[in-house]
């Protein structure tokens, strides 16, 4: 142990070749300077430290038995060194079948790299890059769809139960499973609502005629058509019969919804719609209702997607709707 720690690798190497080689090798070899240096580099790189377990059992026996004689452990150490070096370098080289010293030198110069290792490195690198890119884009899509669920966006919409134009109850549950377009207005509207409803009719036809809708993977044929809803802001005058008469002029698909003043106030609040219907109006009184004019696009889960304003032409609005429909479940 003590001797080993003070012998430098080079010294030990020279030792093993000049003095102990004849003990281990069958014929003496005079190594070239370059081979020596390459071997010594290798040795240095591989942490030269000899621990007791590297000695052969015979040597250990010797050293313990002849402890008083200093020569014996030293010789034994040399033997062990030579055996190690010879076994590692020469033995390995012979097994791998190096024919020339040059071949072996080039093997050491290139280190552990080979064409196969390079190929493995590049292919695993490429696979990793591909995998990370795929994961990144998947997470990005997930983030967008999560954002539409109401995180960081206004939560528009909610449960309601109103009456349709046939005086049958209609609730938000019937909106589930298909895209719907919600519009708030009133039938005695002077000019904006009729214009918007005419636009809505064009939008409905454009959207329903699109292959994006017919390609939706749903068993329900109704889901392949958009559900247009007209919710009145003027429940006092817009009874189911009035809505039926009024909406039949625009599009057969539009469902008109009405209810009590409180119900309408509640749904307008849920959709963030401003409206100003006088609460107590006398029968036959003539008045107007101020209200927000937006089309609300709601997804098949009843979540708000986008508000479409008056600035869009029906064609552009239909494009906007179809863009969202095309993103669904993708």
């Amino acid at each position, binding site marked *: 142990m003590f001797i080993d720690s003070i012998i430098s690798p080079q010294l030990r190497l020279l030792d093993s070749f000049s003095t102990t080689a004849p003990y281990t090798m069958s014929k003496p070899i005079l190594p070239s300077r370059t081979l020596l240096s390459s071997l010594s580099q290798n040795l240095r790189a591989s942490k030269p430290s000899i621990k007791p377990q590297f000695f052969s059992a015979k040597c250990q026996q010797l050293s313990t038995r002849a402890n008083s004689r200093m020569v014996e452990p030293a010789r034994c150490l040399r033997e062990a060194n030579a055996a190690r070096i010879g076994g590692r370098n020469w033995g390995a080289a012979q097994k791998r079948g190096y024919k020339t010293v040059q071949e072996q030198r080039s093997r050491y110069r290139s280190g552990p790299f080979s064409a196969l290792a390079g190929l493995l490195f590049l292919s695993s690198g490429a696979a990793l890059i591909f995998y990370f890119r795929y994961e990144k884009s998947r997470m990005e899509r997930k983030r967008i769809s999560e954002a539409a669920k109401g995180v960081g966006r206004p939560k528009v919409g909610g449960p309601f139960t109103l009456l349709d134009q046939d*005086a049958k109850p209609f609730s938000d549950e019937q909106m589930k499973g298909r895209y719907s377009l919600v519009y708030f207005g009133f*039938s*005695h*509207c*002077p*000019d*904006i609502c*009729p*214009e918007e409803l005419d*636009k809505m009719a064009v939008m409905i036809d454009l959207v329903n005629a699109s292959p994006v809708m017919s390609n939706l993977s749903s068993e329900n044929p109704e889901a392949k058509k958009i559900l247009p809803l007209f919710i009145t802001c003027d429940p006092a*005058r*817009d*009874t*189911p*019969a*009035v809505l039926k*008469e*009024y909406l039949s*002029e625009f599009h057969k698909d539009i469902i008109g919804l009405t209810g009590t003043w409180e119900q309408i106030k509640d749904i307008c609040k849920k959709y963030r719609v401003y409206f100003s219907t006088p609460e107590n109006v006398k029968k*036959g009184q*003539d*008045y*107007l209702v101020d209200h927000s004019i937006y089309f609300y696009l709601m997804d098949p889960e009843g979540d708000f997607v986008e508000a479409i304003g*008056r*600035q869009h*032409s029906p064609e552009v609005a239909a494009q906007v709707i179809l863009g969202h429909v095309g993103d669904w479940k993708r």
Partner: protein
Amino acid sequence: MGFFSSSPTGPPAPKISTDGAPIAPDRSQRAMCWEARDAYFACLDKNNIVDSIGEKDKAGKACSAEGKGFEANCASSWVTYFKKRRVMEYQRNKTLEKLKAEGAQEMPGQIGPPGPGQRP
């Protein structure tokens, strides 16, 4: 014109729906109202009247026939609404012109509702 002057107090009473509420003006009734409105406003334009509520006497003298036709074909709330909107649009256009004269840049998109008869 004979139709307009026949009932100067308002449009014919609305039909009552099956559940007792008056039915809103239908497409043809709306078109008639808008037509009468455009005729009235054309007359006001000719006489340089913007605010037909503020300048009631002047408007009444200059465009009495058109005014009657307007009122005959539109509900009174609609008449007031259109008259107020005319003033609002006039002021809006004036502001826009002023801004343009000051070198403001126009942005794409429409500001406010379109003018009467104008299709978006």
